[in-house]
C-alpha cells in the first residue's frame, strides 16, 4: 500500500495547481504567476533563423497543429528548457522518484486496453487496436499514460493544469516518432469542455481525489466524451483500510510522507463515483481494484476495491445531444 501512497503523493503535488484553478476565486497574482511559464516556439524560431528560412514555416505549422499556447510577452528560455529536460529524464526514469507510477502503469494499461477494446469492438490481438480513435488523458503528468496510448494507435491529447508537466511531457514525446504526434495542452477539463471538444475516450487517473468539486469535474469529463464514448477514472477509496495504509501508515507511523499529503475526506467511494457519473450521463460498467504485491513489486488487478480502484463507464445518449 505504501507504493500507492507515493503514487498519489506525487500526483497530488503535481496537480496542486488544479485545485487552485478549480476554485471560484483566483487571486490575480496567481494568474500572473502562471503566465510566466508560457513560451512560444514562434518567437524562438524568429530569434534563431532569418525570416526567409524555410524551417520557420515548419515550426509555425507544427505549433499551430499542436495548438500550443502563444504569448507575445515571452520567448523560449533555453535555460528553463534545459531544466525541464533534466526533470523529464527524472520523470521517465523507472527507478527514479516516480518509480511507483511506473510500477502501476502496466496494470492500469492492461485494464484500459481490455475494456476499451471491448467497448469499441477492436481486435485485442492487434498491435495498434485504437487507430482512428481520439483519446484524452486528463492529468497527464509527464505522459506516462499518454505515450503508451499513442503506441496503441490512438490519437492522443494530454492535458495537465501544471505548465511544467506539459513541457516535460512534450519534450519526452518528441523523442520518438510514434509519440511525437501527441497534443499536449496546459489547461483544464472545464475549459476544454467549454470549447466544445469531443473525444472517443476520456481518461483521468489519480486526479479526482485532488479536485475541489468532483461532481463538476465529472460533468466536464462527460461533456468531453462523445455519446456512446468511454470514460475511465481511477482513485483511492474512502475506507478504513485506505485511511490506515495511506494516511496513518505512511504519514504518521512510517513518516514516509509529510503529514497532510492526503485528505481522507477527499477520497471517493465507488458508490459515490457511480452516482456522480450517473448524474453526469455516464453509466459505470466495470470497476476493478489494484492490489500491490510487495514481493514482486507489481500491481495486480483484483476484485478488492477497498483501496485503489479504476472505473470504466459509457456516455449515455441524452436528449440534449440529439
Amino acid at each position, binding site marked *: 500500500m505504501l507504493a500507492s501512497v507515493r503514487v498519489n503523493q506525487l500526483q497530488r503535488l503535481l496537480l496542486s495547481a488544479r485545485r487552485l484553478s478549480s476554485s471560484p476565486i483566483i487571486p490575480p497574482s496567481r494568474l500572473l504567476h502562471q503566465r510566466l511559464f508560457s513560451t512560444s*516556439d514562434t518567437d*524562438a*524560431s524568429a530569434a*534563431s533563423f532569418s525570416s526567409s528560412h524555410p524551417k520557420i514555416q*515548419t*515550426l509555425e505549422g*507544427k*505549433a499551430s497543429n499542436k495548438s500550443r499556447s502563444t504569448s507575445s510577452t515571452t520567448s523560449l528560455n*533555453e535555460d528553463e*528548457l*534545459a531544466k525541464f*529536460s533534466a526533470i*523529464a*529524464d527524472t520523470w*521517465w*526514469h*523507472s527507478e527514479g522518484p516516480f518509480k511507483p507510477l*511506473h510500477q502501476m*502503469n*502496466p496494470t492500469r*494499461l*492492461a485494464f484500459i*486496453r481490455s475494456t476499451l477494446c471491448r467497448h469499441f469492438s477492436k481486435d*485485442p*490481438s*492487434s*498491435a495498434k487496436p485504437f487507430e482512428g480513435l481520439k483519446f484524452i488523458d486528463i492529468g497527464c503528468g509527464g505522459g506516462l499514460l499518454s*505515450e*503508451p*496510448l*499513442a*503506441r*496503441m494507435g490512438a490519437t492522443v491529447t494530454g492535458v495537465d493544469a501544471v505548465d511544467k508537466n506539459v513541457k516535460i511531457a*512534450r*519534450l*519526452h514525446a*518528441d*523523442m*520518438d*516518432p510514434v509519440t*511525437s504526434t501527441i497534443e499536449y495542452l496546459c489547461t483544464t477539463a472545464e475549459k476544454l469542455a467549454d470549447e466544445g471538444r469531443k473525444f472517443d475516450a476520456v481518461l483521468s487517473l489519480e486526479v479526482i481525489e485532488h479536485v475541489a468539486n468532483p461532481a463538476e469535474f465529472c460533468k466536464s469529463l462527460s461533456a468531453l466524451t462523445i455519446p456512446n464514448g468511454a470514460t475511465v477514472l481511477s482513485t483511492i477509496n474512502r475506507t478504513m483500510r485506505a485511511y490506515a495504509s495511506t494516511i496513518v501508515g505512511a504519514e504518521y507511523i512510517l513518516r514516509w510522507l509529510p503529514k497532510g499529503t492526503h485528505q481522507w475526506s477527499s477520497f471517493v467511494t465507488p458508490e459515490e463515483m457511480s452516482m456522480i457519473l450517473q448524474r453526469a450521463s455516464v453509466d459505470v460498467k466495470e470497476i476493478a481494484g489494484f492490489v500491490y504485491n510487495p514481493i514482486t513489486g507489481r500491481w495486480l488487478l483484483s476484485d478488492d476495491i477497498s483501496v485503489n480502484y479504476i472505473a470504466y463507464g459509457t456516455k449515455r445518449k441524452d436528449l440534449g445531444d440529439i
Partner: protein
Amino acid sequence: MSKDRVLARNLRTSVCGTRILQRTCSTVVTHDVSTSCSNESNALNNSTDDGPQHDIAIVGGGMVGIALAASLASKPLTKHLNVAIIDNNPLLGRRNIIEKGHQPDPRVSTVTPATISFLKDIGAWKYIEQQRHAYFDKMQVWDYTGLGYTRYNANDVHQDVLGCVVENKVLQSSQLSCVQESDLQKTVYPARLNAMDMLPSSSLTGLGEVPSTTDLFMRGRLAKLELSDGNRVYAKLVVGADGSKSRVRELAGIKTTGWNYSQNAIICTVEHTAENYTAWQRFLPNGPIALLPIGDKFSNIVWTMDPKEASDRKLMNEDDFIKAVNDALDSGYGPNPETTSSRDSLSWLTGDATISAKERFETPPKVVKLSSERMMFPLSLRHAKDYVSKRVALVGDSAHTVHPLAGQGVNLGFADACALSKAIAEGIALGTDIGEANLLKRYEAERKPANIAMMAVLDGIQKMYSLDFGPLNALRAAAFHGAHYISPLKKRIISYASGEQSLPLFS
C-alpha cells in the same frame, strides 16, 4: 549560435556519461558535434550518416536466434516488427534444403516435450517431421560398478515420449523455413558485429523537428551496431544470440561467472543393425557415455572423459574406437547390473509402482559402424550475471553455457526465446518501448531462476559422477536404485527433465 552551444553541452554530457563507449570522448564529441552542425546547414548530409533502423536486431543466426525470429513471426502482436538478423553464416540468406537421407551430423540436440510444444507453436515442427528425427520413450541410466540402474518410461507420467533427438542442422533449417515463409519484415546482414554503441536517455532541445535516426541514437532511443562489412544498423532492442563467446555480451559490459571442467567430450554418429528406441547413459570412472537414437538405425554418442583420453580416442582407428564404445556400453570397466530382489524390501515406499519399475536391465544395441567424424570439445559452465541491460537482452548460450549431459542446453535456449518473445508481445500490448529496461527485466525474472536451477542440477550430476571412489560408488548406486523404484521421485525427475518448471525432489 546559442542553439549550437546547447547541443554541444548536451552532447558532452551524454557522451561522457556513457560507460560502454568504445572510443575516446573527445573523438566522439568532435565527430558528433560536427555532424549535428552540418545537419543544421545541409539536410542531405543527414541521410548519408543514417543506417537502416530496426525494431529488433538479433545477433547470431543459430538455433536460438532463429527460434526467436520465428517466435516473433508467429505472434499477432509481434509479427509486424522489423527484424534484423546479423550472422556471417552465408546459409542464412538462402533457402536451406537438406536432402533426404543425408549423412547424419554428429551435432544433435535432445529436445524435451516442452520444446517440441514450442516448436509446434512457431510452426517449425512440421518441417522437422519431414527430416530424420527420433522420438524415444524409454531411458536407462546405470553405473559401471553394476550396483544399480534406473529405467524411465514416458508412460510413468502418462506421456507418449520422453523426448526427441534431432540433428542441429535440421532444427536450424526448419526454423529458418518458418522465418522465410512468414510475413515478418526481416533483413539478413551477412556480417559480424564489430562495435555496439548506446547513449543514455536525454532530451535534446530539438523541439518541433522530426528526429532523424542519428537524433534518436543520440537521445538513447536506439542502439547503433557497426558491422564487419562497414554497414551500420540501428535497433531499439539488440538480442545477443551469438553463443558462449558472445560479442553482444562483451560489448554490453555484462560479466559472467563459471568454470571449466577438466574434461572433454567426444561426439560422433554411429550405426546399428537394428533401430534404437531408447536413450542410454552409463557412468564410467572418467565420466558418462550417452547413446541417443537419431533415427534410420543411427545413434549419437556423447562420451565424456579427461582431455588426454579424449585425444587418444579421437585418433585411434575406427575399429578400435567402435570396440571401445561397445565395451563402454556393455561390460567394459565392470559387470552389468542384475535385476535384484531389493524391490521387495522397498515395496512399502513404491506406492503405485511405475511401469518402468518392473522393467529389467537391458544392454544397448551393438554399434557396428562409425558414421561421422569424431568431434571433441571441452566442457564448461558459464552464466551471465545479467541477461539484460538497456536495449540489450541475451538468450541461449550467451546467457548460459551448460554441460551437454542430459542434452538440456538447447532446451534452455528455446525457453529463453519463447519467454523473450512473450515479454516483447506483452510490452507491445501495453504500449511500451520494447527496448525499455523494465520490460526486459520481466524476461530475466522468468528465465534466470529456471536456468540457474537446471545448471545446478547438471553441475551436481557432473560432480557426483566424475569421481571414482568406493563409498561414493555405493552411494551413487543406492541413488540409482531409489530413483528406479520410488515412484513419486521418478515421476518428478521425468517431469522436470521434460521441461516443466518444478524442481525435482520437491513438491
